[in-house]
């Protein structure tokens, strides 16, 4: 059952071979056993999950079930969910029981899915290893001495350890794709604007995008059918016709043109990662694809551009945490300014404070043009590289991360080294393009390697097709960590 696809689970529920209450309880039992070691969840609330399961069973009995009705889905703790503790991985929100639902949460509720719990994450999604969470690091189920990646590390570990059927993540600079790669699962960051940001706690609003994480491309397609869609409460939500993301899964790949950017295959990538990526490309050739050499000359500037734009937007977004309306307030303070300064200094962790400091500096008087506007100009150059590339190819492929999962604490003291682990994923957020990661083998120490697939704007259905055909021909995606 823990190996079943979303489609198989939905069929079993509708055929009454299993009830949602039974299915949900099985997952809750497995979580109770494995979560203490993995720390993939911040909040588990069996009572609320089982109440939803009972309602789903009534809907199944009435014959009004949708594709995901009754299926247990974990939610990244960045999504506000009514009556659920929603911490965003921060002490700042240690007591924030959300009074409302994020759009994504409403979508899953309307679909009759079960909220199985809130997954651990880097504090305010700022991190690439899940080590900045106030609630402790998540362990990688493939090797508990290693990180799961971040910031959606709890989600990635939960999916890899079969603690949920599928789960949500968010991706600002690689936070869905990099942990998916490091934990050997599949993850999709849609085109910017496809999934509503309403009720998703903001990090860098022009880059943040929600997306699904699961065990196969087919599962991701079913998740996308629930998550995508226009929402007037998000000012950058795109008004587009509803689409079925599973519609192209079974198309053959004959004639598919895969672009390989030379910059992604230059120095910096581990030899073990390179070997797995090359084997995946060879597999795609067997499936009928042709290879096109392309160049993204400005992509090397992604990291500096990102580390201006994202902290700038973060420093503005996080100004709302002031100890007045919600969240942490320092126990002792003098005047109002002192209350703000102490509440924020005590409520935010070191990495969040570092990024607020960078952002405040680059937006401050006299530096705005030199940093922020300059970075936005280079952002356009980076996006234009992709527009040129897609004149020659249909999808772009490369590694998701330069290395497999590193050890806990290994990069802790050096923010620059940590930032460089996002080198292949950030350009995609800056351009607003859809990107995904799927498992494509194992590197040193038997740790999973992720293949990144980057699509043109709104090409998610084609990317899912490209991933699904590979998953029909290979079995990397169905490998599970040993000993769980």
């Amino acid at each position, binding site marked *: 059952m823990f190996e079943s696809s979303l489609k198989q689970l939905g069929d079993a529920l509708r055929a009454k071979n299993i009830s949602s209450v039974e299915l949900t309880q099985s997952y809750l039992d497995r979580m109770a056993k494995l979560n203490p070691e993995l720390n993939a969840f911040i909040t588990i609330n069996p009572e609320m999950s089982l109440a939803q399961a009972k309602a789903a069973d009534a809907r199944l009995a009435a014959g009004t079930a949708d594709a995901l009705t009754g299926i247990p889905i974990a939610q990244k703790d960045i999504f506000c969910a009514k009556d659920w503790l929603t911490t965003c991985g921060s002490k700042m929100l240690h007591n924030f029981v959300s009074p409302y639902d994020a759009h994504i949460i409403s979508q899953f509720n309307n679909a009759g899915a079960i909220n199985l719990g809130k997954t651990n994450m880097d504090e305010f999604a700022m991190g690439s290893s899940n080590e900045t969470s106030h609630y402790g690091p998540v362990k990688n189920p493939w090797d508990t001495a290693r990180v799961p990646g971040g910031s959606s590390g709890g989600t990635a570990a939960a999916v890899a350890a079969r603690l949920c059927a599928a789960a949500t993540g968010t991706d600002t600079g690689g936070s869905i794709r990099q942990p998916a790669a490091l934990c050997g699962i599949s993850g999709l960051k849609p085109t910017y604007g496809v999934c509503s940001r309403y009720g998703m706690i903001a990090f860098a609003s022009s880059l943040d995008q929600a997306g699904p994480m699961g065990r196969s491309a087919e599962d991701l397609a079913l998740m996308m059918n629930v998550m995508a869609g226009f929402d007037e409460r998000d000012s950058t939500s795109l008004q587009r016709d509803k689409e079925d993301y599973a519609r192209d899964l079974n198309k053959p790949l004959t004639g598919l043109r895969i672009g390989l950017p030379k910059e992604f295959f230059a120095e910096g990538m581990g030899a073990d990662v390179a070997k797995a990526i090359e084997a995946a490309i060879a597999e795609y050739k067997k499936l009928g694809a042709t290879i096109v050499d392309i160049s993204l000359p400005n992509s090397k500037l992604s990291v*500096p551009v990102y580390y201006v734009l994202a902290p700038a937007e973060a420093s503005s977004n996080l100004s709302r945490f002031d100890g007045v309306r919600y969240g942490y307030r320092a126990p002792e303070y003098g005047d109002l300014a002192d209350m703000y300064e102490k509440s924020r200094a005590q409520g935010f962790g070191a990495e969040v404070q570092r990024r607020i400091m960078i952002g405040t500096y680059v937006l401050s008087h006299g530096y705005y043009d*030199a940093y922020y506007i300059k970075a936005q100009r280079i952002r356009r150059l980076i996006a234009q590289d992709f527009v040129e590339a897609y004149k020659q190819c249909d999808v772009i492929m490369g590694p998701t991360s330069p290395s497999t999962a590193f050890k806990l604490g290994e990069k802790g003291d050096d923010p620059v080294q940590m*930032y460089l682990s996002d080198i292949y994923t950030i350009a995609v957020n800056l351009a607003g393009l859809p990107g995904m990661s799927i498992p494509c083998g194992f590197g040193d120490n038997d740790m999973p390697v992720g293949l990144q697939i980057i699509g043109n704007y709104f090409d998610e259905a084609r990317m899912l097709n490209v991933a699904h055909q590979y998953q029909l021909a290979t079995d990397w995606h169905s490998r599970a960590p040993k000993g769980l």
Partner: protein
Amino acid sequence: MIPYQPCLNIVFAMSLSTQDVEKVARLARLAMSPSEIETSRNQLNGIFGLIAEMQAVNTDGVEPMSHSQDLAQRLREDKVTESNQREAFQAVAPQVEQGLFLVPKVIE
């Protein structure tokens, strides 16, 4: 306040003084001890080294890009769409009294 001067040497050298960092911390409303200021100064200087690469890129005539789709903001009708949920929203506040958020005295 010091009036704006295009201090290119500061922008390119990216070396912040203790006073610079104290000022940023104040603007960001973050209480920091002298040792935290020093740690922050070293880390910020390291990160600005990473950012310095940007300055060498020619961006003459390139429009800044804030969103990939370059959309104009949508407008909506000017009518009430939300109901008042003061109790629900104040239930998560650190300190409230008689429907008001409490903060230290601002005006003497």
